[in-house]
């Protein structure tokens, strides 16, 4: 039946030639519509004899299927082409900027404090806090610094104007009054660190009138100088994240500790503007420490015949400067956006012992 074959090839040619979906629809209607050529041919089936139908039926259906499939395939092809054309027309310049969003930062002081807290938390130290405006008694007298003691000259103190009741308070010169408050409130065993803002009347290239300290206090039975040494060593090693750190303790004096010692760290400063730790011939001062003075324990209501304790204190700003290579303490408090972004830490860089204190 060359009629059928001819019709099929004629329709398939039309399908292939349909340029768009409308033209294809026209071909479909012309072939498969009620009055279409294929429909007309199918309509002749009924007039055939059963034998002829057996022969012709499959051929007729084959034609119908071929045409239907061809139209579907062409339709998909045209659809893809149309989508491609649309997508091509929707092209954007990806080099244009996205929605502006500021990237926030965490101040180095906050970051370094979290590092310090992470280390001490693992050693079982709580974090104690106290007010910046402090009683003279807590800042000095209870710490065994009576009025007119030469040690008061070690710390140039800011005084707050006299209050209505005549009382005159100070801006704390160290965070040691927090230790006093802790000992007055709690009974041993005590393990705390006390971080915070501290103030001294001092302003030059290496001093700022406000700075930050973190102190540690342990009071318990049987605490001795060896525990102090171990704690300082472990802390410094963990904080600086260097194994080959070398520390030196030397005898010193603080009114609130006895014996008192200061800590230095070996460093190399032979290359200007660069510090390398654990090597070289220089020593860098880290902070002070000692066994809590018997009078301080007793001033704070702790039985010094039963309990012994140690304390040490470091400058937080100084620790940040050393670890992260920041040259000038004064710039910490200037809020220069460029500095904040340069030395600040990413919002989600949270220091942990498991993940590491720093990147």
């Amino acid at each position: 039946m060359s009629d059928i074959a001819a019709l099929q090839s004629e329709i398939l040619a039309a399908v292939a030639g349909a340029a768009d979906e409308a033209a294809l629809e026209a071909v479909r209607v012309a072939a498969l519509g009620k009055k279409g050529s294929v429909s007309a041919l199918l309509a002749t089936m009924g007039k055939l004899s059963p034998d002829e139908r057996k022969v012709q039926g499959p051929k007729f259906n084959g034609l119908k299927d071929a045409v239907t499939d061809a139209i579907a395939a062409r339709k998909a092809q045209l659809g893809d082409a149309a989508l491609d054309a649309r997508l091509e027309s929707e092209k954007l310049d990806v080099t244009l900027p996205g929605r502006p969003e500021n990237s926030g930062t965490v101040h180095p002081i906050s970051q370094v404090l979290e590092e310090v807290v992470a280390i001490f938390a693992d050693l079982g130290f709580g974090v104690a806090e106290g007010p910046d405006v402090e009683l003279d008694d807590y800042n000095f007298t209870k710490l065994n610094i009576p009025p007119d003691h030469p040690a008061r000259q070690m710390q140039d103190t800011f005084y707050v104007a006299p209050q209505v009741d005549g009382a005159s308070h100070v801006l704390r010169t160290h965070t040691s009054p927090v230790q006093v408050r802790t000992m007055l409130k709690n009974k041993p065993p005590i393990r705390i660190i006390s971080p915070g803002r501290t103030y001294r009347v001092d302003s030059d290239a290496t001093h700022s009138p406000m700075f930050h300290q973190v102190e540690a206090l342990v009071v318990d039975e049987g605490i001795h100088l060896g525990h102090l040494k171990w704690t300082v060593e472990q802390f410094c090693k963990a904080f600086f994240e260097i194994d080959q750190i070398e520390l030196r303790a030397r005898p010193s004096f603080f009114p609130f500790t006895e014996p008192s010692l200061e800590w230095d760290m070996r460093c190399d400063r032979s290359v200007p503007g660069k510090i390398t730790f654990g090597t070289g011939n220089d020593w860098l001062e880290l902070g002070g420490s000692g066994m809590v003075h018997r009078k301080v324990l007793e001033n704070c209501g702790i039985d010094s015949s039963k309990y012994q304790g140690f304390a040490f204190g470091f400058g937080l700003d100084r620790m940040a400067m050393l670890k992260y290579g920041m040259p000038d303490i004064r710039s910490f408090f200037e809020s220069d956006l460029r500095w904040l972004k340069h030395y600040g830490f990413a919002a989600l860089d949270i220091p942990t012992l498991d993940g590491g204190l720093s990147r």
Partner: protein
Amino acid sequence: MKFTLSWLKEHLDTDADAATIGQRLTAIGLEVESIADPGAALKDFIVGEVVTAEKHPNADKLRLCSVSDGKDSLQIVCGAPNARAGIKVVLARPGTTIPASGDVLKLGTIRGVESRGMMCSARELLLGEDHDGIIELKAGAKVGAPVVAALVDAGLLANDPLFDVSITPNRGDAASVYGIARDLAASGLGKLKTDKVQPVAGKFPAPKKITLDFTPENKDACPIFAGRLIRGVKNGPAPKWVQDKLKSVGMKSISALVDATNLISQDRGRPLHVFDADKLSGNLHARMAKDHEQVLALDEKTYVLDSETIVIADDSFARGIAGVMGGMDTGSFEDTKNVFIESAWFDPARIARAGRKQGIISDARYRFERGVDPQFVLPGLELCTQYILEWCGGEASDVVIAGTLPPPHKPILFDTALVESFGGIKVPRERIIGILQVLGFVVEDHGDLHVVPPSWRHDVDGPADLVEEVVRIHGLADVPSVALARSSAVAAPVLSKSQRRSRTARRALATRGFNECVTFSFIARDQAKLFGGGDDARQLSNPIASDLDALRPSVLPSLLAAASRNAARGFSNLQLFEIGAAFDSGVPEAQKTVAAAIRTGNAERHWQKGGEASGLFAVKADLLAALEAITGAPMSAPITQGAPGWYHPGRSGAISMGPKVIALFGELHPKVLAAFDLKVPAAGFEIFLDAIPDTKSKGKAKPLFAPSPYQAIERDFAFVVDAKVAAGEIVKAVKLADRTLIDTVSVFDVYEGKGVPEGQKSVAVAVRIQPKDATLTDGEIEALAQKIVAAALKLGATLRS
């Protein structure tokens, strides 16, 4: 405290070099600030020998020399007239830094001839002014060796390292070269070798008497005062060795009489005063000053004293502030003929107080307030007598003494086991006793030790001090480190709730693009006044600068000042925050911890348009996000219109939980912005972290998850309402129309203008309805809608047609 190695060796017999001594000083608590080695700058120079010296072919005044460096001969052009064959010279080779110029020597060509080094003059090495010729070293100098030894040999360099040691306030005994030698000797480095001071016999009775005129309560102000007169002295310059010695530690030479006291002060830690006896009227008295009594001191300033200050007076007037500074009118000068030497012991606390009160810093105060050795009152007087007689001639009177030496220190009961249980190191008992004895302590062994500190140690008054002495001399480095016991196997959390809040707020704000600042807690008073502060109670008595004189009542002014500084640098679009202290008054209890933030600037320009300026709703979103982070739950606390005066009165609000305001937010008042010279919009907020109530813990388990199986539906309502009615009121009213079915109500449009009557607005809300038990029928939904409309009507809101 400064001293040279040679000075130290006058008291200490040791072969140790400067570096070893320095390390030991630091190890025993006398911290070395620096050791200046005068030979250090010359370490690269060597001894050279001029082999030949010919005339330079192209210059009459220059010589062409061949100089041996011990191995090779170098060709050097030299202009010095004394450059000649056979002399030993100071040779600098290329690469050596010349001290006078600081330049590094290079290979040079002089008048067409190459020069491979330089022979140096004294001036070029900073060893003197001589520049007429090059240095000629002694013939025995070893060619090729470092030049320092040869320079010392030639008398051109005093190779005497200068120590600068920082003395802690407790160690008055170490404020002298002798005291430092004594401590070093105790540590085993060398032997103390100073002879006892021999007394000088008086030739005549002292014509002046001394009295101690104190009431009983001030009796301990000056327990002993000794003196003597020397007549017929001739004041002038001190001997050269004295001048050189004082200069070597940076002290000025003034006159023989003054230098004698300064030398003894530095050498032996004994301050003295030399009066011009002819200017004193009558006898000498130590007493407390009268209130408002005046003294013209040696620094030519007049000091007004009070009754807590000790003075040395004659029969007429106070003539000096005892232990601090002598008086001008009775001082020793060029024409002084007869002198009276004062040597006394004063109570350290009273000296410290007087010095601090008068603001006088002097060598005498420095030593007296740290405590000098009372046993050296008389030897000091004798030593001074010897010097004056030797340097100025004259004749000494008998010594007069008022009072008696203060009693020796009380014995301390010392259990030697404390060295291990407190000092953390096991030291044999004999060694403990030995250390204490070598330090001058008198030790009696009665099972427990009875230990009497030496007269020069005023800082030792308990067993802990003795442990310190033993440990510092035995060696702090040897104390073994001992681990602290872990208080729990797995470290327990340590942060308080408020500490966690601060942390969370910090990270939340940084995540939203804010840059954290840390600023001073004090600001300018004028700025404090804008934020409800600036009162007298929050002023500093001694501010570091006049614009940092007030405790800040709020963190916002600090941030605005920071924004202003950044704007001046060309950065106006900012997001800054700080978590820190603000002060309600000047007492410890009046401090609060505040998280404050600001946004400043206009919307960042973007090619797609539509950014947001630093306005109310930007900071409101920041604030709510921060509060959600802090509390761990969506913020449902009521928001009220209005905030204190530093905010825009119509564009600010407050959030309260219970009775407490936990946060303020809004655009900042234009006057405030003007005060900070900010020319761009700014809005901000303050969270009062301490005011946020604790959430009650209901255990760790969360409530069971029970989602409704029925689909939620959303219906929109547009109401027309008086423009003054807050959108929040409408939302609240709608929500309360049916508490079980209405899940959320959100405002999605607010419109005023055409189509809405004057003075009214249209507020459109989307209501999300969540059926709980069964799908709602049309009738039920309609009924709910009626309830919503009725609820809104109570606020005067009608459904917009």
